[in-house]
């Protein structure tokens, strides 16, 4: 993985695995966070994410959503420590409530990521629950 990043969490569903990585240090005030995901079977592999000032009491929920060839669509969320759950709004109208794990780094930021399965289904919005 990228030098200067630490793994926050490791997850898997069946043959699909993913790891959330966040930078050890801020880069010009911005925190980089990525979700690396891969299929063990066919070696499809991608690492995507976003950067920006870390979550704060004002900007409590930050997220990325996207996709990559041969992998399911994915979402990545990081929140202020006070945010215990978020709601994902999918393109088919479904709302998913997701619990945020305990803060994953020394900054008190919570991180969570996961796949979205289904043709054409994507994450349209993530907000605090």
């Amino acid at each position, binding site marked *: 993985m990228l030098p200067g990043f630490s793994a926050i969490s490791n997850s898997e569903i069946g043959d699909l695995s993913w790891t959330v990585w966040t930078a050890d240090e801020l880069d010009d005030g*911005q925190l980089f966070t990525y979700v690396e995901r891969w299929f063990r*079977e066919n070696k499809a592999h991608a690492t*995507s994410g976003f950067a*920006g000032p870390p979550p704060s009491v004002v900007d409590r929920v930050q997220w990325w959503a996207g996709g*990559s060839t041969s992998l399911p669509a994915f979402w990545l969320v990081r929140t202020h420590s006070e945010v215990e759950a978020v709601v994902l709004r999918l393109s088919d109208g*479904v709302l998913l409530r997701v619990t945020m794990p305990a803060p994953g780094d020394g900054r008190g930021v919570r991180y969570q990521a996961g796949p979205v399965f289904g043709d054409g289904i994507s994450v349209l919005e993530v907000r605090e629950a």
Partner: protein
Amino acid sequence: MVRSRWGFVVGAAALLAGIQAPANGLGIAPAQGPVSADRVVVVSQAATPTGGVRITYLRPDGTTATAGWEPTSIAPLSAFGCNGNVCIDVQGTGNTVVDWGTKAIGNVGCQRAYFQFKVPYASWQSHEGPSICPKDSRQGVYYDYTGPTGWFANNTQLCNVWSKSSGRPCETVQS
């Protein structure tokens, strides 16, 4: 619509509409409407993330030769993602980027895109796109597909920002 390398499109109201989950043989069955419990329901099916095609030819001497296509062990680079009002779209294979574009949703007047990339242990470099000005005050989508292309070192970070829109989505180059 004829796509030029950069410009502004009016009427694209669907934020993140470009995100498409690839057909991968997997399915999810999340509960409809708000869910009261913290859960993501996943229905597991036989996973065939990438299909394969194999054609066997019969030679005159009775032996066979196989041609076709199989899933590659080279990680695909083609990726699309959004953060805030900014999206990144990178196409390529392995360490080679053949097309790098970005979009920004909304109408904030004239603005330009920046294509940023960082090779491990090096400083950020930035390519500046042209200034793009909407013709009126309607909402729309800015787009710029003039990002740098070619070979990038492993683990190079590719990010996009726009001068007035918020968001900084990133992809990484991996072979």
